[in-house]
């Protein structure tokens, strides 16, 4: 028992040394894991040089197809032949995973970030502004997307917003419903998922409804209230005052009684619909296209209150190891053919409107089917900020981390 404390002391010292070494170079928000901060004095990329031979992209499944899933869908091989940049895709299953990968030590160049992740990447100093002069085709991007708030941010407060990426595609959330439950009627309002109702098949919707398990869904509730409770004065469903926010969460608590399950995974939801467990839910065109019985047993609609949507942006890592190939991909990502093929595969709408015409896979009706005309009714995902997206205007909105804790509570029954 003599000098028993020595090994303990050794362990403790080593551990504390390790902890001290983990003291990070601080980023804007000090987020974890640490990332080197963007030095404002570093000149932005001013020209695209020779390709480095590879480009590493973090993407959602199905976003970057090379023909291996379906030979008709390949927009990688030609790029590789033209530029000599080999495309390495790392698939991520969630936005959280994308954030983790981009902040980690892997050598990623690009990421196809959704609106809930894009602002987090910007504020975390993980992505760099894109020099639009180097993207020759940028003005073919849908003008409504070109300066969208979820990737165009004035980070250095010089009065001019920087673009942190290039739009890739967008789509809207839809109301997917079972034709068996609704007989020949098409539901025209989100009330079928928010309020207790009797459906055309004679049964109530109690327990047969689903809702998305991500906190961003609060915006869908806010959107519903925008139409049905105008006295609340909700304008942007992502910029909610405390009062508006509480009204939305109250609606969600009411909805909790109706929900059979909160969906997280597209396939799980498809199975639930195919099994008859769910008959109505907010969903993505992906499920609508691929569920067993798509088009016959299951259809979709964008209800009259409008819908939330997602618009993904290809963003570049602040320390991208292959910036030249990355820029070449950014330019390639908005070419007409790719955009059309991608939209066809995904059931989404291209970021480049010219892609809607003349694409074999998409067909000329494809864009309309996928909801292009609904743009003005779509409220695209963006991470709620405390300043209501208007820095310096003195407004106060509920920030995202409160959304998350509140929604977790709602789902948990509190």
């Amino acid at each position, binding site marked *: 028992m003599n000098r028993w404390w020595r090994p303990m002391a050794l362990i403790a010292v080593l*551990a504390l040394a390790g*902890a001290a070494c983990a003291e990070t170079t601080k980023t804007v928000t000090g987020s974890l894991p640490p990332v080197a901060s963007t030095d404002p004095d570093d000149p932005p990329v001013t020209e695209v040089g020779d390709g480095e031979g590879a480009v590493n992209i973090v993407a959602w499944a199905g976003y970057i197809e090379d023909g291996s899933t379906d030979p008709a869908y390949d927009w990688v091989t030609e790029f590789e032949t033209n530029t000599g940049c080999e495309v390495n895709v790392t698939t991520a299953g969630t936005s959280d995973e994308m954030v983790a990968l981009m902040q980690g030590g892997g050598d990623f160049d690009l990421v196809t970030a959704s609106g809930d992740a894009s602002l987090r990447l910007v504020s975390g100093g993980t992505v760099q502004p894109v020099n639009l002069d180097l993207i020759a085709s940028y003005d073919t991007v849908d003008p409504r997307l070109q300066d969208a708030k979820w990737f165009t941010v004035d980070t250095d407060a010089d009065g001019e917003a920087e673009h942190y990426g290039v739009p890739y595609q967008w789509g809207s959330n839809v109301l997917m419903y079972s034709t068996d439950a609704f007989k020949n009627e098409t539901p025209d309002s989100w009330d079928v998922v928010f309020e207790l109702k009797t459906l055309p098949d004679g049964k109530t919707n109690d327990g047969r409804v689903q809702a998305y*398990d991500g906190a961003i869904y609060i915006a869908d509730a806010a959107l519903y209230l925008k139409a049905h409770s105008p006295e609340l004065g909700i304008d942007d469903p992502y910029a909610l005052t405390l009062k508006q926010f509480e009204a939305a969460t109250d609606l969600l608590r009411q909805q909790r009684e109706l929900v*059979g*399950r909160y969906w997280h995974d597209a396939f*799980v939801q498809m199975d639930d619909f195919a099994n008859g467990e769910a008959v109505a839910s907010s969903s993505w065109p992906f499920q609508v296209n691929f569920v067993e019985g798509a088009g016959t047993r299951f259809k979709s609609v964008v209800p009259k209150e409008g819908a939330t949507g997602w618009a993904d942006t290809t963003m570049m890592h602040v320390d991208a190891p292959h910036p030249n190939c990355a820029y070449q991909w950014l330019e390639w990502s908005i070419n007409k053919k790719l955009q059309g093929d991608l939209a066809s595969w995904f059931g989404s709408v291209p970021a480049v409107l010219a892609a809607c015409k003349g694409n074999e896979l998409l067909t000329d009706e494809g864009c309309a089917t996928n909801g292009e005309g609904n743009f003005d009714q779509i409220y695209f995902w963006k991470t709620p900020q405390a300043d209501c997206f208007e820095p310096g205007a003195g407004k106060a909105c509920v*920030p995202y981390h409160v959304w998350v804790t509140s929604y*977790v509570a709602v789902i948990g029954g509190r």
Partner: protein
Amino acid sequence: MTTATTGRRIAGFFHRHPRGRLLLLLSPALLWLGIVYLGSILGLLRYSFWSLEEFTGLLSREFTLTTYAALWEPANRDIILRTVGIAALVTLLAAVIAFPYAYYTARFTSPRMKTFLFLAALMPLWSSYLVRALAWRQILAEEGVLLWVLRRVGLEGAVRLILDAPVVGGPTLITSRISLIVVYTYLWLPFMVLPLITALERVPGSFLEASSDLGARPRMTFRRIVLPLAKPGLVAGSIFTFSLTLGDFILPTMFGGSEFILGQQVYVQQGVVGNDPLAAAFTFVAMAIMVVYLLLAKRAGAFEAL
């Protein structure tokens, strides 16, 4: 010959200086676990003493306990209790299922059979965790094999009964909590079986003989002799089942209702939400739970007789 002599000299040195030998043996692992692992955990825990400013959402590095206070909020308390509850049920179920198998394997089988049964319990670990989980989705689906069989034998009503039960029930098989528990049990069962087999092997045959010589029936022998001696194995296995359940975040997206559990919270909070202090605080809770559990396990002798 000289190398052998040098070797002997070195061996002799270490024999006379046990602490030196100790240090040599320990240092690689110590360095690894101490600096890299423990250091990074402590670095993570620092965040739990910070907080996000309520309105701006920016990280404030001032020491505060408000993040831990936030853990006490009903919703978060629910998460912690729910997770611990599920882990406990999984451990219990795994112990109950594993015991007969381990007992039989340890004591009543020929060496060849024992090897076979030992390996048979081990093999499922080789197939992917994800695919095994998926297989259960396929089994439990409304159109899947379990209900198909039950309908054939007219036992579908029994399923309804289970689903209506409180706590473990749910609207359908897949969305019921009991399915989550069963699938976890299934996945971690080999981890419970193997230490149990090892522990039960160690029960000296002479104890059992003595017990029956003294007039005890098999059941009493079991209760009084076998079970207490098997406890270390049970506890060792439970460390796995408990902690693996505590940290998982993938399975709840496939089974059970939608309420969140601990691992998911850590994942989500550190991801897009960027609420690293809360993620770290949840981590600390998980650590605290496991440390307490390990302390109790040590008391039960699990560390001595794995």
